[in-house]
């Protein structure tokens, strides 16, 4: 028996895709600024980066509030007991099982739409890396703040952290986009994030 589950409500899908576009815009302008490239005029890149960054911050705050209010946040909290074993099971699937057409070890349910690897990664990305990136992005906009808070060489710390976190988020994005092709079918994960629902096989006795 199949049941249609709405795992990604409209607000979440909208946030996801707006966030994806902002990631791209920040990536392109950020790289241009970092290398002092003339490909995008510096002043333009700066402005686009600032506006995108602010929008990302607002979007992030919206996502957190809406996630808490709707209970969506529960999907981000891993089951800590036996987490290591679960992550290894998922990793083994990507390393071995996926080539043998084995079933996904943690199919989405209403209570747990992410697999353990996703949970750990998304928790780190949304609740650790993004806030760090946003906070030091804002410090960049008000650099006087950094000088007062940390004193000597503070802006270096902020800049280094901003760069490193952005690098990790870019690496995450690469992995995220690739793994989106590793669902039941190559496109099923993309359908999930556009339509919002997923068909779940349910055993008769459950």
């Amino acid at each position, binding site marked *: 028996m199949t049941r249609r589950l709405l795992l990604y409500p409209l607000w979440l899908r909208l946030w996801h895709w707006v966030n994806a576009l902002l990631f791209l815009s920040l990536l392109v302008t950020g790289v241009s600024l970092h290398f*002092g490239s003339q490909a995008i005029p510096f002043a333009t890149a700066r402005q686009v980066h600032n506006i995108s960054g602010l929008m990302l911050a607002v979007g992030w705050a919206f996502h957190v509030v809406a996630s808490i209010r709707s209970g969506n946040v529960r999907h981000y909290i891993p089951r800590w007991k036996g987490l290591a074993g679960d992550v290894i099971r998922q990793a083994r699937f990507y390393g071995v099982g996926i*080539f043998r057409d084995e079933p996904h070890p943690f199919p989405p349910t209403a209570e747990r739409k992410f697999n353990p690897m996703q949970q750990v990664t998304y928790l780190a990305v949304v609740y650790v890396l993004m806030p760090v990136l946003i906070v030091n992005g804002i410090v960049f906009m008000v650099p006087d703040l950094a000088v007062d808070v940390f004193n000597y060489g503070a802006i270096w710390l902020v800049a*280094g952290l901003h*760069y490193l976190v952005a690098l990790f988020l870019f*690496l995450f994005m*690469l*992995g995220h986009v690739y793994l989106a092709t*590793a669902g039941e079918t190559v496109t099923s994960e993309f359908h999930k994030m556009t339509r919002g629902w997923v068909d779940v096989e349910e055993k008769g006795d459950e």
Partner: protein
Amino acid sequence: MTFRCAAFGLVAAAFVSAALFFAGSARAEARAEEESGIPGGEVTEARGELAEREYASVNERCLRCHGMATLSYQDPTTQKTVSLAVDPEKFATSNHARMTCTNCHQDDYIEYPHVKKADRASLTCLGCHRADKKTSRFRIPIFDDVGRQFRRSVHYKALPETFDCFSCHDPHVFEVLTAEAGPAAVVNSDNAICLKCHNSQPRFSALTRHEFPSLKQAHSWLPSPSMHWRSVRCIECHTPRGGNDINHEIVRGEAVERNCVACHTKDSALLTRLYRHRVKEERQVSGLFASMLNNEAYIVGMTRSPDVDALSFFLIGSTVLGLGGHGLLRWLARRRRRS
């Protein structure tokens, strides 16, 4: 026997290393002098004990009156109070501290009352600050173009009669900060020269009838102006690029550097100006620690670490390769299953 040989060897090594050390430090001193262009040692060495005494006695005699903070007179034509005071403490730390007053204020002044009328026009900086190898005290021609550059500056063009070296530089106080002071101190000290008038309407209006330009308004196009003012000198943008690093051609309006990438790039114009003394060492030991720890300033596009960049490219490259390889294997596995 072996012991004696070893002891002799040790003593010899100590002598050799001591000799090398002194030779090294002498070379370093000469190099520092050559780079700064200010022959610090030369003046003291040339001046014997007698000269030292004369120096002290001349300056002491002058400062007996001119060291009084209140010494001044009222100009009969302008009715303005003109200060004749020299702060002895500031003079002692200035670049001219080793000179006698009469090096510039010619010998007429040695008698009291002064024979010659005080004549500011007869005083000139370029008498000493010039590149002429025979007469100049400066070995490198950094002052070569100063006179020409000054005549092209907005200040001279607006006020050819009244604006001179002393409008900005007070020779009794002027102190060029050395590289060790760090960019922040250099920026602060150099900008203070401009801000003396450009941040004070009374001082500005005393010089000219031109409208007092608002610094904020003029720089409204510049992102984070206060941050820029704290990190770079006014002259970084307000002198044309390509001149020497003490360019005196102060420009305004259209001629001002407004291209962000002039500084915000790896080959930043700041490297030939504000950070000129750091360029050599910086280029030699480029890398994470050199760029992050030796550099007090952060400049987007300029001060980035090549090590971190290389690490980023490596991480991104290996991620892309890893994911691509995984995808390829998935595709091959599926083809095999189907066949």
